[in-house]
């Protein structure tokens, strides 16, 4: 007889029979969580719990909202009642963790997150672990990349860990690179864990291939509990509307008509900002949500909370908001662009309608979708040549190189360097490892080669997934059945609720031309901010006084916040600038008018007293003539005081900010003495280092405030 000591309800139970079986206890815990005295387990829930507490391994594949959280929270509760150690959960998203904490707390469990943003709580968490006060410890896979967790936090746990929970386990077989690379580490961790340790892996989106992969990773003797993926409340529709202006217009019209609140998914951060700003300008409570929303996770948490509280009508998000975000009354999910796979789509659309009778899943697509998909596929892996150059730099170094030192050694984007290092560090054995802040090569570095077959295979899979999504867009029969079939759910049948089953649109697709026109104007007139830089990337870039403060840019040499008319080839003014820069002798008066209009709307303080420019590297008159006409319109003096002192390469050829800063460190001079507040004009700003350097020189020459105004801001990551 397998007994447990008294639990929270003072129950003594047995595994086999009797009035208070272990199942009875577990069911009571379920009722505690859901707050319903007559709740019972769904098919597979108790069976999974029972296997876990018998120290077996289980893979639970069930649709979102089925109650996977119940399985591991109740299993943790029972294991803790039996005197086992706390559970460790690896989960990819913070939003998910916050929901898990609420579920765990309803059982009286103490759940803590150990994540990057709560650094100041780590000490307390470690103390609680040492005192055996924590029942469920949650980490992101990225935490595993930081030595402290493995070396310091884990060993603090008193009584050892009783259960490993791997949430969103499909990431194990997802080859991770374009989602959470650290899941590759989880694969190896779990295969290094002795077989007598229970592991539960859960996912809502796994086709047969993924299930087989996960089984291979977790052991063939793992039990699999798999249920139907059908979502009865969800009503699906696809809408063909390739033009971005039309889609924006449609959103402004359709969103207010949809019940409740929802999420609009975009493929890029830029589009997330654009759509959110557009909807907000139309009086809709919308905010954008992506990896760089605000500073730190608190802002993202606030955005999630605002949506949960229905303070927002819509959150316009990238994939950063996805798995695990739980709002049962979410009324709609709209995709502004086509997601990369059916797995992604099902996962995202599955956020809607968990706790309500009806919710909408509306999929739009645009002409840019294929280009974006191609970009992500092309950039999923760094090229061998780039890997080689980074490894060569590390191989030559004794004692390793910091990220900045690598940037100085190789002309590659910071994002490429980071991605490459991450990829390499995840290999086992890894050709590079991080020792302190420095990256160091290992002996494998000298002949490391990325596996071309692996990349080809992965690309083929990604392409097939894209084709499957295109097929979904063109599908004439039941859309829910299409998704179920694609995910190998054998229970697929016509849902009777989607656009195709009903034979009529669930949401009208008509867009008034006036809204399309407004959207066009909105895209054209979106000005961007130019933020002043505060630090030089490396100490002592030159012997000039502006660089004398080593890494920090002295306050007396800094620019103030400026503006750009638009982004590089952004469909707005950026397109016109690009065209005229390429094909015309000078910029048109139209751009001067727009810039003057921008300055008047902006109305900076202190007001600029004169205008100057960054002299052209190519020797063209574009910027000079533009600035002259601009200054004349504003009746300000135009004084070209900045000179080219030394030749430099185009900034667009320099791939990271260390290289870019160094490239222009000695390129300019301001021989005259200056005074007053100045507007500094350039046509294209790539990284901001040219503006930063020239602004510092102007201030060194005696200027008051230096305010940049550029025609286009060209974003180059890194």
């Amino acid at each position: 007889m397998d007994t447990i000591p008294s639990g929270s309800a003072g129950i003594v139970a047995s595994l086999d029979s009797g009035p208070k079986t272990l199942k009875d206890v577990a069911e009571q815990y379920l009722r505690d969580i859901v707050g319903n005295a007559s709740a019972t387990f769904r098919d597979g829930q108790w069976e999974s719990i029972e296997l876990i507490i018998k120290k077996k391994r289980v893979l639970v594949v069930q649709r979102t909202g089925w109650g996977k959280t119940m399985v591991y929270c109740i299993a943790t509760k029972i294991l803790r009642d039996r005197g086992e150690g706390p559970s460790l959960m690896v989960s990819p998203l913070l939003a998910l963790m916050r929901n898990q904490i609420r579920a765990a707390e309803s059982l009286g469990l103490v759940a803590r997150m150990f994540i990057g943003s709560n650094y100041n709580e780590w000490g307390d968490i470690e103390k609680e672990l040492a005192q055996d006060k924590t029942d469920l410890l949650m980490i992101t896979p990225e935490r595993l990349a930081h030595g402290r967790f493995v070396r310091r936090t884990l060993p603090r746990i008193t009584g050892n860990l009783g259960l490993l929970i791997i949430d969103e386990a499909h990431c194990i077989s997802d080859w991770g690179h374009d989602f959470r690379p650290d899941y590759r580490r989880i694969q190896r961790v779990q295969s290094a864990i002795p077989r007598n340790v229970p592991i539960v892996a859960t996912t809502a989106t796994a086709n047969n291939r993924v299930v087989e992969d996960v089984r291979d990773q977790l052991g063939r003797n793992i039990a699999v509990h798999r249920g139907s993926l059908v979502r009865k409340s969800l009503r699906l529709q696809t809408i063909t509307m390739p033009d971005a202006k039309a889609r924006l217009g449609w959103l402004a019209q359709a969103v207010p008509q949809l019940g409740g609140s929802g999420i609009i998914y975009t493929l890029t951060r830029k589009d997330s900002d654009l759509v959110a700003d557009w909807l907000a300008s139309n009086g809709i409570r919308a905010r954008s949500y992506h990896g760089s929303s605000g500073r730190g996770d608190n802002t993202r948490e606030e955005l999630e909370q605002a949506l949960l509280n229905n303070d927002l009508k819509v959150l316009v998000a990238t994939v950063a908001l996805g798995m695990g975000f739980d709002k049962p009354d979410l009324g709609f999910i709209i995709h502004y662009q086509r997601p990369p796979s059916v797995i992604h789509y099902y996962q995202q659309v599955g956020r809607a309608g968990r706790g309500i009778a009806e919710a909408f899943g509306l999929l739009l697509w645009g002409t840019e979708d294929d280009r974006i998909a191609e970009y992500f596929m092309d950039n999923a892996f760094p090229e061998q040549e780039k890997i080689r150059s980074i490894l060569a730099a590390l191989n030559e170094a004794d004692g390793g190189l910091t990220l900045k030192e690598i940037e100085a050694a190789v002309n590659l984007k910071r994002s490429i360097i980071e991605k490459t290092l991450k990829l390499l560090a995840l290999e086992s054995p890894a050709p590079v490892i991080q020792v302190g802040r420095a990256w160091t090569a290992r002996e494998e570095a000298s002949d490391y080669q990325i596996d071309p077959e692996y990349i080809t295979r992965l690309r083929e899979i990604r392409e097939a997934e894209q084709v499957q999504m295109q097929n979904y867009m063109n599908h004439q029969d039941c859309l829910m059945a299409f998704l179920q079939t694609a995910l190998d759910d054998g229970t697929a049948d016509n849902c009777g609720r989607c656009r195709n089953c009903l034979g009529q649109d669930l949401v009208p697709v008509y867009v008034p031309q006036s809204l399309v026109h407004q959207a066009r104007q909105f895209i054209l007139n979106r000005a961007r901010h130019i933020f002043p830089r505060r630090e030089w990337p490396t100490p002592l870039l030159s012997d000039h006084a502006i660089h004398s403060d080593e890494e920090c840019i002295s306050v007396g040499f800094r620019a103030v916040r400026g503006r750009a008319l638009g982004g590089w080839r952004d469909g707005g003014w950026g397109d016109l600038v690009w065209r005229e820069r390429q094909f015309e002798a000078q910029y048109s008066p139209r751009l001067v008018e727009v810039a003057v209009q921008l300055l008047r709307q902006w109305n900076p303080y202190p007001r600029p007293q004169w205008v100057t420019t960054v002299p052209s590297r190519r020797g063209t008159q574009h910027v000079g003539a533009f600035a002259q006409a601009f200054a004349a319109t504003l009746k300000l003096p135009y004084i070209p005081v900045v000179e080219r002192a030394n030749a430099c390469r185009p900034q667009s050829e320099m791939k990271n900010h260390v290289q870019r800063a160094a490239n222009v460190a000695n390129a300019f001079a301001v021989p005259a003495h200056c005074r007053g507040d100045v507007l500094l004009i350039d046509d294209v700003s790539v990284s901001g280092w040219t503006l930063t350097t020239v602004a510092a020189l102007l201030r060194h020459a005696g200027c008051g405030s230096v305010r940049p105004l550029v025609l286009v801001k060209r974003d180059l990551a890194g």
Partner: protein
Amino acid sequence: MFNKLSDDTNVTLLLCADLGGKGTLRPLIQTEYIQLASWLAVKDLRFAHLMEDAYLQDAAACGLAYGRLRQLMGRGIQLGFCVEEWQRSGVWIISRSDSAYPKRLRTVLEHSAPPLLFGSGHQALLHAGGFAILGPDSLSAPRELIARKSAALAACSDRTVITAGHYRVADASVAAAREAGGKVIRVLADKLIHKSVEKSARRAIAAKRLVHVSTCSPSARSAMLHAAEAGLVSIGLADQALYVSGTGIVVDTYGSATAMKQGGSGKSFFVWTGKSKDVSGDAQQLLDRGAELWSDEQVKLDWHPLAMPVQSTDTVPMAETPEKAGQLPPAVQEHTSTDLKPKAQNVYEAVLPILRTHCEKPRSVDELSELLDVQKGQLKKWLRQSVRDGVLSKDEKSTRGSEKYEINRQESLPM
């Protein structure tokens, strides 16, 4: 690539490895491990059986508390994280139950052979024996030079140089052996990963000429508490050893002298004392136990790869147990003088002893070309290289075309 460990090794790790942190849970120490292993042997069980709780409860009969064993065995998830991190950093793990565990360690150290070895680099070197060079933590420069020269000598004779720790004797020996293109086993107490990613180390590892090994896990916080095991493992892996003595009272973190006393059965040991009459107590004890004196004169005379000291049959093994007297351990029997002939890696290395012989007195390029029947161009390359290597010296006063080369007299050891 990820090497899945055997169940036996997993259990040994769970019971004996320090997985880091300041926890109060103590892994089994050597004597406790032996206690448990002996009980398993009597019961005809393997360590893997202890994954089942029933066996673990029975195992308490060997005198270890069940609660502690259970807690140690409960570190499965922590172990998973540690093993993943170690293997990703290039660290391999072998336990006494693995076939890769060096037989000579088991044979020589018997119950002192560590249950686990963590290492980085070319594992196969652990099976080939070698020449251990040990000493106290700090040494004067001339004494350090003895270690350096001896390591170079061993390396040139294709003997693997074995050292313990990362103090002066070890650093000097490793550097000299590497410079000579030799193979090295470095037994560390700590910094296993750090030491393996040093530029020179990773190149030697890539060339399969270096292995770092430790009895302590890379996660251990108190690795230096086990430092003495480094000395012991060095001796266990070696078939010959040199103790470079300090003077007066010396600190010997890695327990080199003690290890030589403890693990010296069947091995030929040497002690360098220099001219100082102030021989350290450890060195004197080793000499008293039969170690040979590695004298200045011997080194001067024998400073040639061919003259590497060889285990002779009449060497009296130290601290030999009565039951083993007269037996020569296989590790020693395997070595014959033919094994110790230099194995040149290229033509230059092969020709170097010949050049030295002919350059006992100053010789011009023309003379050497005729004597050796070799083209002058090639000969000049070898001569330039030998000057760079400090083997020969060139008469700087001679005019162009009449340079003479002779043995570099300054190469002799400072006494």
